[in-house]
């Protein structure tokens, strides 16, 4: 429960919001400014954001942050290193969605790290993209990474290029290119759909080290089965925090954990209420469960 200690101000603010949401009647003028239906959502958003902000501040002020290990991440440097030894390229596939998808944005922060490592090792990273906006962002990111390690001359914008918006046109190009150029390391980070298995199996056939990360639950099985390491769902979003190593970013992970505690608490309360209501058959309790489900959690 150390996670919840300290942020008294936030807890107080959240309590006030919660009480306001629960007690101010629906006819009140307040709800002309704020959507009545979404009042509890506002509380949850505030609590979650508050927790993330609190832990980021805590970390910035020198507070200690401990997080568990995620194996896939350590493999990134290793994979780039191997590609360098073999004198072959790495490819980074940022998924097939546009910059309006948070997974693509998260993949850009992972790319920043991969590009920095390739710049240090003097390896080549190829970034074929399926969207023009992703291409422009990726160029900014890679250029910045090369600048940061002091090798701006080695940056080649042509290695980051647009292929086509069409999912399978993009895959046709990628798999053909993988078979021909035989990259030593493949990173699949972002939002993937059916192409996941085509990529992972082709990468497997050419013997590349493959590291994947996605929050598309449907594609996780294929990455888990065919890649060396896979960042599952939330781990993928946490990756940028881990890779940056900055305490402020690691702090945000603790904020996420607070979110999970909220889930567990609400769930346990709800399930207990529902169970007691079911056994006792009390209509009052059944109404309470309904209130929780369709009013508070709406």
């Amino acid at each position, binding site marked *: 429960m150390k996670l919840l200690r300290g942020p008294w101000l936030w807890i107080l603010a959240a309590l006030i919001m919660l009480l306001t949401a629960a007690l101010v009647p629906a006819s009140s003028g307040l709800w002309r400014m704020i959507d009545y239906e979404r009042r509890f959502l506002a509380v949850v958003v505030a609590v979650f954001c508050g927790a993330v902000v609190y832990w980021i501040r805590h970390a910035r002020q020198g507070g200690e942050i401990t997080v568990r290990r995620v194996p896939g991440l350590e493999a990134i440097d290793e994979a780039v290193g191997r590609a360098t030894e073999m004198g072959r390229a790495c490819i980074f596939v940022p998924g097939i969605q546009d910059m309006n998808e*948070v997974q693509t944005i998260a993949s850009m922060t992972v790319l920043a790290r991969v590009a920095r490592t390739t710049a240090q090792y003097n390896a080549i990273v190829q970034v074929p993209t399926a969207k023009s906006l992703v291409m*422009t962002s990726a160029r*900014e990111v890679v250029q910045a990474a090369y600048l940061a390690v002091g090798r701006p001359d080695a940056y080649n914008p042509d290695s980051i290029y647009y292929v*086509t*918006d069409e999912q399978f*046109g993009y895959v046709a190009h990628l798999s*053909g290119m993988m078979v021909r150029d035989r990259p030593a390391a493949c990173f699949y980070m972002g939002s993937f759909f059916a192409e996941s298995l085509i990529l992972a199996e082709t990468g497997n056939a050419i013997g590349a080290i493959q590291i994947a990360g996605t929050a598309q639950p449907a594609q996780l099985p294929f990455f888990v089965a065919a890649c060396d390491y896979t960042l599952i769902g939330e781990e993928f979003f946490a990756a940028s925090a881990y890779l940056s190593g900055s305490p402020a970013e690691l702090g945000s992970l*603790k904020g996420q954990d607070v979110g999970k505690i909220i889930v567990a608490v609400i769930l346990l309360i*709800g399930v207990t209420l529902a169970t007691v209501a*079911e056994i006792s058959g009390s209509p009052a309790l059944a109404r309470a469960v309904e209130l929780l489900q369709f009013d508070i959690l709406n």
Partner: protein
Amino acid sequence: MQRSTMLWTLVMVVAAAFLIGRTLQGEGGRGSAYVRVVPRAVDEDHPEGRWQGVERVDPAEYWRAQAADPAQTAVRWSPANTVGIWLAALFTLAVLSFLAGDNPVYKVAESILVGVSAAYWMVVGFWEVLVPNLLGKLMPGVIQAWALPGLEAEPDLSYLVPLTLGVLLLWRLAPRGAWIGRWPMAFIIGVFCGLRLVTYIHADFLSQIRNSIVPLVVMNERGFAFWDSVRNVLTVFGMLACLVYFFFSIEHRGAVGKCARAGIWVLMITFGAAFGYTVMGRIALLAIRLEFLFDDWLWLIDPNNRRVVDGATALLQSAGIL
């Protein structure tokens, strides 16, 4: 290796020549396509329509029409669509050839696909987004006169915002001040981060908690429902165990470790099931491609009875083909 390649090429050329010969023999054979002429914009002055369009029909319909009136031209053989079916079949085979290894045929197919699809999405973007949602909003009069006669709207100047953002974005092509292209990017990223933050918490986070609130003990008219209760208990605790696995601030040791391990097990079962389900879909995809080859192209099977005609027409059909 060289010899086998030559042998294969020879086999393929002979097979292709045979198939093409069969198609060109008379009107009708493997891979042939037929169309019906349909009148468009029919009114009193133009009972035949101001102009005519076509739609594809089954071969059986052509044979039936021919049997009824050999001189008719409303339903006819379509060279463009026949070539199209052949091309589609060759493209299908070209992509499948990648399974045997990378080869020039696949590379050609890949190059065409990349070019065609990039242009396809640009064309779609132009006619579906830029014309109605940008130009049509900014200058509806011009667009109505030119391309969208059904458009009835007043100019909406708020669309100057995306136009400006677009110009800023394209600024990076200019020799100076490419950094200005970051502004629209930043705007987009900021906007969607804000939007996703709330919608994900609303739609996935809260609604998934809500759906998980179930009684652990289920009663029905016959009293205690054992299996339903077991299901609910497993669902709730399975989900909690998975959440423990995703916990970042505690190492997976001791009791937490055991819980996290149970969580991984549940995740693995989830993945296994997803894999099984997906296999189904993937096989259906292959099936439909093979059906195209066997049905539309080679006429080996006819599951939809598209080439079945009654006795009299059948006679004519066999006379026409053989």
